[in-house]
């Protein structure tokens, strides 16, 4: 398994490094990403939003919908944890009715 992984990964690293040759240089002021949208973001922050932190302005306003999605991701994770780990109320005999709990006697005894 490991040799296969290595065989696949080393060329992959080489390829990623190779294709990065076409990316803009580190810190290049004329990179497309620095020329196209970002000046407008600075301008509109100053013009419309008027808060100093550009990142906050973009995060919560210009791309606020992404951020809403992001909080929903966190909320999803919370629900997922609840769904997976939540326990129902105890029954009278002390056991818990849970569809997902099917642990046999071996569940905790067999360790590795």
């Amino acid at each position: 398994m490991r040799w296969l992984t290595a065989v696949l990964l080393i060329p992959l690293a080489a390829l990623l490094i190779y294709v990065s040759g076409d990316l803009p240089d580190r810190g290049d002021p004329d990179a497309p990403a620095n020329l196209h949208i970002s000046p407008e973001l600075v301008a509109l922050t100053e013009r419309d939003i008027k808060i100093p932190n550009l990142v906050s302005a973009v995060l919560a306003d210009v791309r606020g919908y992404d951020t809403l999605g992001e909080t929903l991701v966190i909320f999803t994770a919370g629900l997922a944890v609840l769904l997976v780990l939540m326990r129902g109320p105890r029954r009278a005999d002390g056991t818990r009715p849970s569809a997902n709990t099917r642990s046999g006697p071996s569940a905790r005894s067999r360790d590795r």
Partner: protein
Amino acid sequence: MDVHASAVPAYALAIPVAVALAVAVSGRWPRLRDLWPVAGAAVLLVTVFSMLGRVTEGEVPTATLIEVSLGTSIVLSADAAGMIFALLASMLWLVSSVYSIGYLRALGEASQTRFHTAFSLSIAATIGVALAGNLLTFVLFYELLTLVTYPLVAHRETEEARRAGRKYLAYTLSAGIVLIGGAVWVQALGIDATFTAGGFLGGADLGNATRWGLFALLALGVSVKAAVMPLHSWLPSAMVAPTPVSALLHAVAVVKAGVFGMVRVVAFVFGPALLADMGAWIVLAVASGTTMIVASVLALRHDNLKRRLAYSTIGHLSYIVLGAAVLGPIALTGALLHIVGHGLTKITLFFCAGAIHARTHKENVSEMDGIGWQMPLTMGAFAIASLSMAGIPPFVIFVSKSYLAWGAADAGLGVFMVIYLASGVLSAAYLLPVVLRAFRPARVRPRYGEADLRMVVPLMLTAAGALAWGIEPDLLFGFRELAENVAHAVFPAAGPLVENETAEQVHALERLVAGGIGILTAAGIGAWLLHDRLGGDAVPALGRRAAAPARLLVQAPLEAVFTTAQRATDAVAGRVMALVSRPPEAWGGVAGRPPLGVALAAVLLTFGVVLVIAAVR
């Protein structure tokens, strides 16, 4: 042709569907349930009949149901060829629905509701095939027919029945897919696939590979249901079905859909001119010609009556294929008439076999000695049908066969005329002995007892039909007129068929053929009777000895070839379908769970490969 918008073809399709629904709903009340198919069949017959007048005058009532695919619609159009098939189907549905009630009740078959529902749906699909106005519609109903007849084939739910069902599916579904492939191709070429007398591909400018490719796909697609050897093997297997189903499969719906499809492919898709140009007809002619002989010879060897009839069907279907393949107007007329003639005759034979089975539980010819004295009406009908199968006047197959034989000769293919005649003799040879055995003087005369009236009346009706339409082919439904209209439309240059000289020649030939066959048959009967008188084994032995060279020369090599071919196709289909029958437990854990690493490695592999290609470019 004169296309007229009309809803009647759509009604014709809707009636059996409605019957199927009514049957399914009223499954709890058997009497009511069994009433629906009979009533529906009557209504259907009237409906189809109501179009007849217009169709004989050259109009084509056409119902465009709905556009279901870009550039093509579901179109039902009752042209003359379709009318022949539709009339036959609706007529025979009426009798067979009565018959199947009697049969199923007599044998106490299970799941009668399912049976009647599927039966009605089969008729609906058949009507759809008959009235299909273009290739897509044809394919659609052709596939549906496969689907709805499958529960009928496997009706008995025994292992044998299920195996037959699987085999049936393997053959017919594959054929359907091949046919779809052809239809897709036509559609992709941008050709309007409306069935046109003389062929809609005729005008298109196609490369040789395209023409042959299309021909291979379309002809192969319909050949399976038409049971052209070596693609026939599903048909004898399907004999495990209840007899009304066999009658339906072999006389009305499935196989006739196949040969009708062949007529469509030859005359309405490619057209005689194109096929003659390609030379593709030779393939069909040779295949069907050999099938006729081989199947008849094989039929001789089967003791099981239904199996013998199955091989007889295979042979007679090839009459029609050959009739279409020789590309002549007279032969085409004969082919269309043979759809009717064979339908009437073969359904009678199956009805008789079913009646015998229902009454006596006998299935083998060798057990049927003297049964004619017990069931005189049934065996009388059987005798009539046997004579018809042999092509003896004045029964219906005589008419179609004289057209076929003369058509072959007219097209300059005398060899096929000989084959037709030889096959007629063989038909006599495998069917008449059944009659003779049945009426063999028995020492103890068995008790008289016919089957249920609901079985006897239909079979007598169809036998009477075989006689009536033999005397007057145009009776009531104008079958001959319709067939000649089709031939005339497909071969516009051929001139009128039934006039003057040609008609004279046809009738002269009829007499000739009739005389020849009559003499041969009479000789055969005489010999048999003589042999019977003499007791002992003289004649069969003599026959065997006489037939030995023929068997050596024709039957053995042909059988060897075809058995091999059939085994091959069976092996392919059977392998695939064996998966179905294999107990699933045997396959447990084939596709296990690879470790996550393997999954991820697969990701990287894909990703890396594409990335490498991308980077290299």
